[in-house]
């Protein structure tokens, strides 16, 4: 493991134990209610390349047992040293071996078969994708259904394309295998676990 240059590493959580507990609670809420947007209220300065929500999620969940893959455009010394210092996470060269896959936008989603979808005996041993989006709103063209959602929930995620919808559909079709998505936008995040059925509709009155 290369030496960490501490000169470019900033502080992590101001209150490591309680901040991590708060973020963990928020992530539980987001995962249990897919599409619900939770806002993190933390005095955290992420390294350039990561948003506050991405940084807080990694600080809370990543440790020395969870390999992390960073998309090439954010695989900078700033981000790498920050993760190495605060999380002690090993970084891997391909998303296949990674527990956490960190992406700066939805356009860089790798193909589903290049991700770790878990093992049929242990579907939980799959990758979680931590993706930054330009905008996140609780009303929009994405219609979510599934566990944790009473009837339907709507979501808008900046940068979502039909390719993303196909990715999500294929991911859901492989249940119980598949990856879970955490969409981050500045200090807000929403989760789209593999249980979530996502359809793209145009009008706001699509409830039949």
């Amino acid at each position, binding site marked *: 493991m290369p*030496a960490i*240059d*501490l*000169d470019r*590493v*900033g*502080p*992590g959580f101001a209150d*490591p134990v309680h901040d991590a507990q708060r973020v963990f609670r928020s992530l539980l809420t987001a995962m249990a209610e897919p599409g619900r947007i939770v806002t993190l209220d933390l005095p955290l300065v992420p390294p350039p390349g990561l948003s506050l929500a991405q940084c807080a999620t990694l600080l809370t969940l990543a440790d020395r047992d969870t390999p992390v893959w960073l998309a090439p455009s954010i695989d900078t010394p700033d981000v790498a040293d920050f993760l190495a*210092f*605060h999380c002690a996470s090993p970084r891997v060269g391909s998303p296949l071996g990674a527990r956490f896959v960190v992406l700066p936008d939805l356009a860089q989603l790798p193909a589903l078969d290049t991700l770790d979808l878990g093992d049929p005996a242990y579907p939980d041993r799959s990758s979680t994708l931590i993706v930054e989006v330009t905008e996140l709103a609780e009303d929009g063209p994405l219609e979510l259904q599934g566990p944790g959602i009473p009837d339907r929930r709507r979501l808008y995620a900046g940068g979502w394309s039909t390719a993303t919808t196909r990715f999500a559909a294929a991911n859901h079709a492989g249940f119980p295998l598949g990856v879970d998505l955490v969409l981050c936008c500045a200090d807000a995040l929403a989760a789209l676990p593999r249980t979530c059925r996502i359809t793209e509709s145009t009008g706001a009155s699509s409830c039949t």
Partner: protein
Amino acid sequence: MTDPAAPERDLPERRAWLGLLARAPAHALRAALTHIDDRPPFTWLRQPECGLVMVQARSGGSGARFNLGEASATRCVLRIDGGPVGVGHVLGTDAGQCGDIALCDAMLQDPRYADAVREQVLEPLGSQEQERRAERAGRMERSRVDFFTLVRGDD
């Protein structure tokens, strides 16, 4: 650090002062540090956190390595505002002592404070440590038994 060779070059000296600071009694370090009036403000990169380290040993100093047991240890990292980064590692669970070590380490790397810390902290702690060692060596010396075998004149 713009010069990649700099950390390597500073390593032996820095290792020596970190060892001296970590071995010094917490109260002696704190007392020495209070002699420095303009201690700089700093930011925690890693607040003091306690954990366990596995102490390994070799029997006789040269045998196979084995796990002797766990010891509690505390570590922290801080940055002097607009200055260098200091680290503190110390046996035990004294967060204050650990912070003092890290602050000294950072100040020793900062030309604005290095001389004051050398004079007020490192030198007194160094001589105190030598006294402790000499006193202990003296105690050991008084109770030392020299074993020797008389040459038997039977050949």
